[in-house]
């Protein structure tokens, strides 16, 4: 956990019976508190929205022989962007779009997308995935979710280091290297 996040987390916990005397103590305390409470770094998405975002992120990039979106904490990254990076309007439009995804699910007979049967989820998400030009609603939310999921996944430590094996040092440039897709 980042130092700044821990201190911020502590700052919000005014009910603590005592305050640490220095930053290092604060961080250790924060980390232990964090572990006791479990992973609850979400600040914008409520529990229902977390479940929806997590479900869709994992649908976009599922766990296979390599980690999926959830295990590299893409939902947490999306929450960070919504909380600290997005404008108020963008955040509101996105959250309304999430609600609209559930509205689509409800129209098909299941009030929440996460409660749909896998086949139903697949069918509905396939429908929404092609609504790329929508500026609001479920189609817009899916576009943003997809962009943030792909970005959050491929810029994560695990994927950069272990899957993409990103290098920063090359002995020279070669633009004519044989390549066979692994798909």
């Amino acid at each position, binding site marked *: 956990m980042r130092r700044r996040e821990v201190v911020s987390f502590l700052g919000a916990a005014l009910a603590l019976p005592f305050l640490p005397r220095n930053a290092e103590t604060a961080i250790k305390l924060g980390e232990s508190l964090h572990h006791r409470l479990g992973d609850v770094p979400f600040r914008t998405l409520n529990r229902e929205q977390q479940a929806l975002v997590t479900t869709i992120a994992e649908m*976009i990039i599922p766990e*296979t022989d*390599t980690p999926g979106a959830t295990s590299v904490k893409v939902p947490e990254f999306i929450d960070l962007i919504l909380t600290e990076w997005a404008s108020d309007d963008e955040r509101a439009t996105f959250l309304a779009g999430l609600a609209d995804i559930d509205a689509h699910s409800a129209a098909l007979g299941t009030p929440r997308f996460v409660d749909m049967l896998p086949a139903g989820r697949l069918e509905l998400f396939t429908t929404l995935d*092609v609504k790329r030009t929508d500026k609001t609603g479920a189609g817009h939310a899916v576009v943003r979710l997809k962009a943030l999921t792909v970005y959050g996944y491929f810029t994560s430590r695990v994927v950069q280091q272990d899957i*993409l094996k990103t290098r*920063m040092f090359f002995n020279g440039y070669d*633009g004519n290297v044989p390549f066979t897709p*692994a798909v």
Partner: protein
Amino acid sequence: MPPLTYDAIVVGSGISGGWAAKELTEHGLRTIVLEAGRPIDPAVDYVEHVPPYDKRYRGMGDRKRLERYQPIQRQCGACNEYAGKFFVNDLDNPYSYPADKPFSWIRGRQVGGRSIMWGRCVYRWSDLDFEANAKEGFGVDWPLRYKDMAPWWSYVEKFVGIQGRREGLAHLPDGEFMKPWPLNAAEQKGRDILLTKFGGERLITNARLAVLTEDHLGRQKCHLCGTCHRGCVTLSYFSSINATLPAAKKTGNLTLRPFSVVHSVIYDPRTKKATGVRVVDGNTREMFDVNAKVIFLCASALESTRILLNSATAEFPTGLGNSSGELGHNLMDHIMDGGATGTLPWAKDRKEVGRRPDAIYVPRFRNVKTKHPEFLRGYGFEGRAERPGWQRGSEMPGFGAAFKKSLIGDLGPWEMDFGGFGEMLPRHENYIEIDPNLVDAWGIPALRVHCAYSDNELKMQEDMVVTATEMLEAMGATNIRTYKENNPPGLVIHETGTARMGRDPKTSVLNSHNQMWDVSNVFMTDGACMTSTANQNPSITYMALTARAVSYAVGQMKKREL
């Protein structure tokens, strides 16, 4: 504080200031470099190898901070979560412009200036460029021709270290080149096709870059991490921090003073020379003077002219050295963001290893051999072919295991982009002045900028779209996406002019040696001096002009004529 006294003052430590410092100190002059911004420690400030997962927003930038403190600077893509610290705080460094004429002034105030995050593209001019004003009746004639500049370009190129391919083009002369990185498979095929279909008129060549492909003067060859604008711990690209300032320091004649914001030049009407400069300490706000025999203004085009506009005297009520009335006028930039991107059908079995910071260049082909009916001058294209890899995922249909596998295991097709950079004509009505109602964080009067593109530039930009599309079509590209952005001038970050060189003191501010006609011991060798812009990236020309001007100034001092 009593005045500090040196042989020479250099204002600014960027591309031009670094060269002035190197040349002056190597000629034995005790030289002080006054830099408005902070010092840079490469070990701390260079962040080119920091991975995205070590940045809070994974490189997307601290958007709210950027919007609050750098609303202008953030228009430049390099002002991001990594390199935003190399761009100024817009609240501390205000300027104004009329509502209908926005101008994007992108600045770096630190030791090294914008040489830390510059584009590193270096192209010589030819007499096609130097003679254009005189032949076409725009602005004034350059007091220089290619033969005057060629030895100085060679001189600076040998020190800078430049990679490039020799093409033998009369209108884009070859320089002192190291072996370039090869074109990639897609670019090479594109070059072959264009050579055939356009008879050599439209040529894909290697970008000429101030990035080393071999070890050079104590700097290591580039390791191809691809993020030069964040710094370079191996000193592989040229900057004043990486090259000229260390050379100046080695002489023992250099004093580098950060946090020194130059307010004005001090003029002595009895001798008709400058005695020094007035400086505001960036931290204490204390004002003090620095005296010297010769002054080089290298603070960037607009900043150097701002200093002169803030140096008005009874003799020069509209700005020091402004007997011509041209000081502040003839502001130029380039025009960019006309072009196209397309998907190439071939080389799917080839990939790149290593990330080049820049790739290809298409030299100017308009108004070279034949006259274009709609506009004067011309443009070149920067570009590259690359395979997008996982980054194509957000635009790609699909999801799930196969989608993921494709993003990891395939690279997508080669995408080729051509983005134009065109010349802007010098016009008197594009100018800067002091805004009477605005000061910066150090209490120094700030600028008001009046600048707009003319029809000539806008027609050129339209033509960029047409010719980029033609080239992609010739290559058999599909999914061709054209673009033509309505950017304000300034955003190319090639702002030039406002104290032009010329042959006549009645119509220009500087003579052929970058020396002020009116104040003979003041030289301006940054972008302010430019009489026209050509379409080439300008920095290597500033470097050559600076070295040339220092040589002249030192000669004059030895003859006691300064």
